[in-house]
């Protein structure tokens, strides 16, 4: 599904070039669950953003479902976000002025879904995440774990093939984190491809593969049976 070939990312200062990613090669198959680990500043988020088409590599090729994703124009990228990928963030990034229900509804709008359809999709999600009673609350009225649940619900509402999660548990207590990870695992079992970044070894172990990134290079890859 994802194929990264010789990806380089760097920033040019006045006199020197700082490499964030160096010669990253990565294959991710459909249905995979990849955990990315590594020290702060290693380039984990950068890698995830490139995969999510929020950032462009300076060199190298990126194929998504055999399409050259590094060549996509603006319109195709919007399509990509609309149909193929969902994001979960460490800081949740819910829209404060909108209720739980409306937050989850957002991506469905952009998919052009009809109202009836939206209602049933959201009802299912709320049901699944046990949030029916909270659907009219605003994000500030929820706990961190609940907010991240909403974040996940929003990310998967459009049934993307790929879920990108940058430290989804970073702002959560351990128990809440575990709950989120269980949920991700379940989603993966249902067929969703997931790439997550985490600092937590326990949570990394939820993945089928663990990739260790140091100074922009893939240092090692551990298969997790």
């Amino acid at each position: 599904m994802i194929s990264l070939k010789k990806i380089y990312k760097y920033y040019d200062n006045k006199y020197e070039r700082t490499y964030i990613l160096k010669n990253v090669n990565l294959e991710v198959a459909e249905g995979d669950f990849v955990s990315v680990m590594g020290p702060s500043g290693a380039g984990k988020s950068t890698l995830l953003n490139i995969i999510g088409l929020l950032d462009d590599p300076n060199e190298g090729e990126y194929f998504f479902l055999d399409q050259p994703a590094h060549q996509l124009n603006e319109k195709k990228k919007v399509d990509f976000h609309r149909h193929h990928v969902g994001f979960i963030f460490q800081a949740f990034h819910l829209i404060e002025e909108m209720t739980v229900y409306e937050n989850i509804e957002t991506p469905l709008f952009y998919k052009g879904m009809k109202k009836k359809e939206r209602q049933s999709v959201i009802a299912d999600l709320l049901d699944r995440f046990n949030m029916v009673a909270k659907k009219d609350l605003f994000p500030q009225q929820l706990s961190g774990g609940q907010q991240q649940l909403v974040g996940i619900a929003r990310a998967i509402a459009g049934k993307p093939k790929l879920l990108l999660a940058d430290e989804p548990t970073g702002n959560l207590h351990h128990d809440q984190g575990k709950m989120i990870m269980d949920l991700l695992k379940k989603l993966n079992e249902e067929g969703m491809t997931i790439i997550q970044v985490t600092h937590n070894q326990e949570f990394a172990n939820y993945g089928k593969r663990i990739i260790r990134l140091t100074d922009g290079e893939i240092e090692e890859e551990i298969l997790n049976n």
Partner: protein
Amino acid sequence: MLRNYLLAAIRHLLKNKLFTAINVLGLAIGMAVSLLILNYVNFEFSYDNMHHLAKRIYRVESRFFEGNTLTDDWPTSSFGYAPAMMQHISGIQDAVRVDIHETEQIVSYENIRFRESDVAVTEPSFFRIFDFPLLEGDPKTALEGPNKVVITQTAAHRYFGETDPIGKILKFSTTGSVKNCEVTGVIADLPPNSHFHFDFFISWKTLPDWMNNFWYLHEVYTYVLLQPNVSPASIENAFPKMAEQYKTAAALKNKTWAIHLNPLRNIHLTPQKQYERETKGNRNAVNALMLVALAILVIAWFNYINLTTARALDRAREVSVRKVSGASKIHIIIQFLMESLLVNGVALVLAIGVMLVSVGGFNQLTGKNIPFQLWKDSTFWIPIVLVFLSGIFISGFYPASVLASIKPISILRGKSKQSKGTGSMRKGLVVVQFVASFVLIFSTIVVYNQLDYMMNQPTGVNINRVMAIKFPAQTDELQQKIISFRRELKGFTDVKNAAISSAVPGMEVAFFASNHRADDPNKQNRLYEMLSADDNFASTYGMKIIAGRGFSEDFGDDRNKLVVNEEALKLLDLPDNEESIGRRISVEGEEEPFEIIGIMKNYHQQSLVKAYTPIMMIKYDRIPWISPRFISVKMTGNPSAKTMANIRNLWERFFPQSTFDYFFVDQFYQQQYKSDQRFGSVFGFFSALAVFIACLGLWALAMYSGVTRRKEIGVRKVNGASVGSIMSMLNADILKWVISAFIIGVPLSWYLMHKWLENFAWKTALSWWIFASAALFTLVIAIAAVSWQSYKAANRNPVEVLKDE
């Protein structure tokens, strides 16, 4: 989707109440003002559009040329133009003359008697050319034959109350004649946006026959209706040649007699000329007000842009999330345009409310009773919709596209800095607002300075405590009675002097005569204003005789004598000293030349808007067509009620058939500045509003930057910075902005005000102190707007702030 956007927008707006309030308030004031001004402007442009033939109607305005130089330019034509044009120039379908040579008459019906000032004489074609429907009477015949009159409803009510006016006889008296006219028609009062407002239309045949084709009295307005597709230029071009055959008299023989066809609908906004019956609109004032309206709108729009982009960071996360959820740029732009629509919509509703409430006050300010044309007129609605849409677009589009181009990556990582681009854009817009504020402040000062100058400059005449009584109507032995009346008036203890004249200061002298020096072999005729007066006139008004003498009984009857002003001497090419005394001048229509006996220092017969005009003074009883119209009474103190009663009683004794009408010359003189004063207050008021809205925006921006720089301020304070140094740090930008605005604003305002001052013959200089005080004022209010917020920011307890982070 729309609902989602709207909800987000509404919640966002409600969450940021202060910003929303400032935006809505600014926009609402801006819109209300522009709507009011639009209504006013629309009214000014709507003049004379009630006639369905308006596009083909022109007023024939006379112009005299010497060679290629335009020497005289009047809105009137002579009695003879219209018939001659109809006869000799093709392309004219119809013509009508409106005689204004005696618009002031005493009108009476039985015991009801008023001095009317809107009496015209006109032809039956009047009702063919203009659409003034008759409420009673037949338009075809109402003005046929002599001694008929068509009157307005108001006039009818004044004389006949509820009874039917048709067939009643009204008596019209002037100092020279008495006519009885039968009321044959009643029309509705002329609409306020007509350029003339007569109450009485006497039939043309009532005039003496000799007038009908007379070419030497330019005291009618002539309107022609051109045949379809005839160009006015062709008529104008044909006129001078045709006129040659009618130039039988000596007067103005050396000049080319030309005409200008002024399109009916343009009359109101073309410059005021002599012989113009009503105060016309001022295109400059209209333009200036439109500019102010635009400035206010732009300032309010820029506030919206600035406050929205300044807060872009607050919205950036939302935008980013929407983008990764699949929103395209267009989605985001539409969303923020919706928000702008919402703000503008609320503002518009408020604005319409404000406008409805304040339209009365506005009319008071402009001195016009402008009917509220909002719901009637598409020419009003279209601009509203345009203003509204362009407001949404201008204020909404830039912030929307700024927000739409936010890169989610920068925000979602939480590392974003305000992008540099919008910051400098914001500074640019603030500078533009300051330029507008500076120009408006500057202009307001100039306008008031000019007004003050005009009103306080010595006029050269003493008009204080002078009461001008209007002349009585024709009676037996009018001449003797007037003289006795004057003599008895002078006998009153409070009365210092009394004089008879054809004009008083503050009005056009207006009787033009084409004269030349008797010793001029070329007989170069020029037009001079003829003022007829008695011996007391110059002393009553304190006019200075700088050489020779004024009229005086001690020297006989001064029959063929002239007292002229310096300006007239200039035109005669004579020196303004003793040498000119005794020079002989040949006066239009007079066999014997007149002799100059005195030179009068120039004085301001009219407001300082106008230049000195050449005036020649003759004895009041010398030339019949330059008849006296006023008795000026100079009082020793403020006239007591008793004196006034005595004067009135005296009048009743001498002139029981005439109404007693008077005015005080000083008030009358100041009246000339009324429209300028009104313009000053309208302009000043709206400028103040504009500056206020700009300050509001600045204040909010300062508050925002105080908030975003909270941490920086906290750190600085912990490190020992004083409140003063932090405030000056926060205020430093303002100084830069004001200086930039000053650099741009000075040439701009100089140019604009230089142009505006060109309307005045007597004007103030655009001196440096005006620039300096406008700049200082701009700076002071800007700093005031910002300092409040800076002070708050600088005084916040740093511990609190840093703990928060």
